[in-house]
């Protein structure tokens, strides 16, 4: 009986879903108008945000920018584009920083700051909520 209970407990634990579930929030990728491409593959976008790729195809420097708060938006972006949970992304950057291999992209407060920075900065790319006003920047299509 004890063994049966133990098996049930272990099976229940293993069957637990991931703590980060799918989110309903939508986001858009925004880029500096005229200096960023109209579309990009998901893997290349991930490389840019992980700073493994630092240039656009035309050799212009790529400058990714993140969001400081907005946990749902960051979680959605991390899951969808980077293929990692937010905790995993943060751990990735801790490992990069403390091994002297790189620093995370700059982070800004909210959609308005991101859009303003992207609008003013050549080669900048960021993510904002789906409802944000993106008329001053270009919206980059992400290809799977």
């Amino acid at each position, binding site marked *: 009986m004890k063994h049966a209970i133990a098996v049930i407990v272990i099976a229940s634990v293993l069957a637990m879903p991931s703590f980060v579930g799918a989110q309903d929030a939508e986001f858009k990728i925004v880029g500096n108008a005229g200096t960023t491409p109209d579309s990009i593959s998901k893997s290349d976008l991930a490389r840019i945000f992980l700073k493994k790729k*630092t240039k656009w195809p035309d050799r212009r420097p790529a400058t990714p920018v993140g969001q400081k708060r907005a946990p749902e938006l960051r979680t959605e972006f991390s899951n969808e584009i980077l293929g990692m949970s937010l905790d995993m992304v943060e751990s990735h950057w801790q490992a990069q920083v403390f091994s002297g291999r790189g620093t995370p992209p700059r982070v800004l407060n909210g959609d308005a700051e991101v859009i303003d920075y992207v609008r003013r900065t050549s080669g900048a790319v960021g993510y904002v909520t789906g409802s944000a006003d993106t008329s001053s920047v270009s919206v980059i299509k992400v290809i799977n």
Partner: protein
Amino acid sequence: MKLSSGQTTGTRLVALAALLVIVTAAAPAMAQSLVDDVQIHGFGGWAYAETDGNYYSLGTNEGAWDNADFALNITAEPLAKLTIVAQIRGEAINGEDNFELDYAFAGWAFNDNLELRIGRVKHPFGIYGEIFAVGTLRPFYTLAQGIYGPNGFTAQAYNGVGITGWHDWDSGWGLQYDVYVGQIEGDFEVPGLMTTVPENFLDPRMNVGFEVNNTIGARLMVNTPVNGLSFGLSGYTGEDHTNLDVLEEGVRRKVWLGSASYVNRNWLVRAEYGSIDRSPDFKGNGGYIEAAFKFNKHWQLAARYDAFNVEFPTTDFSTLPPFFLQFLDHEEATLGLNYWFGSNLVIRLSYSQVDGNRYAFVSTPEEIMELMVTGELESKTNMVLFGAQFSF
């Protein structure tokens, strides 16, 4: 260079405090003039650890409250291709204070896949070699002693020149590589008795410095298409020098380590196995496996088994008291429970059961004298640890 405790400790701590004050005071100015170019990060921790007898790792029989450390990391990018990185770290462990320069180097990126590094560079060795002291990147307060304990497998940094790079493919395969030449310096700990030098006998824990000159080393990490699964191989070799007279000078040291790691949202499973060969004086083998499961965003359960064994081919142990054989082995099982407030702060509780006296030993000269009379050394040590680790 690691600075040992003693008369200079106070001076070092004052220097550390002064440096922190200067950096903190300067941060706003730097932020003002180099907004995009300078980032300041740090990490640290504190732990209470108590054993049921021997002195082991951070724990003492009386209970040790004074285990704390803090590091400050500064990265500057004055040019698009140039990165300057430095990290300083201070620690207080069981009454001994140290302040050290973890690393300070310049990196020049030829392109996204290739960088030249020169200076005192973090040692690319195994999974944890470069993030040796960063508590928020692992499931336990301390790393597995079998590989990362005071046995001289790895060092905090290499002094010299290296290249590092990576390449990945859309198929999911990826490579990260490091090759370096220079010098490695570090230290390992042994009970004074183990040195077989009479004047060391009453020293419970001798810190033996070593330098590996004309070192050549490399690390290759392979990421697989299975998200989170990677394998690695690290190694280095060079001429080994220690400040222990009984060890031959300039002997070739050969070290290798194989690594495997799987990390996803909930699971972390890591294992490493390696060997250190300083023939004819000693050869050691060590390894560990650790697994951790996150039940939800906060709670994590972790378990680890690790072991280390060292041989001294030229030493005749039959002429020594039997307990000397206990100095050769280490075996440990640890269970841990962690509460993560986020990826930057974790509170830990762990229980370790240690068999063998490679790292667990009595803590006072009086106890050593008693040991020499009775010839009996407790081979089993239990330790409970409670602590917190943080980073920013």
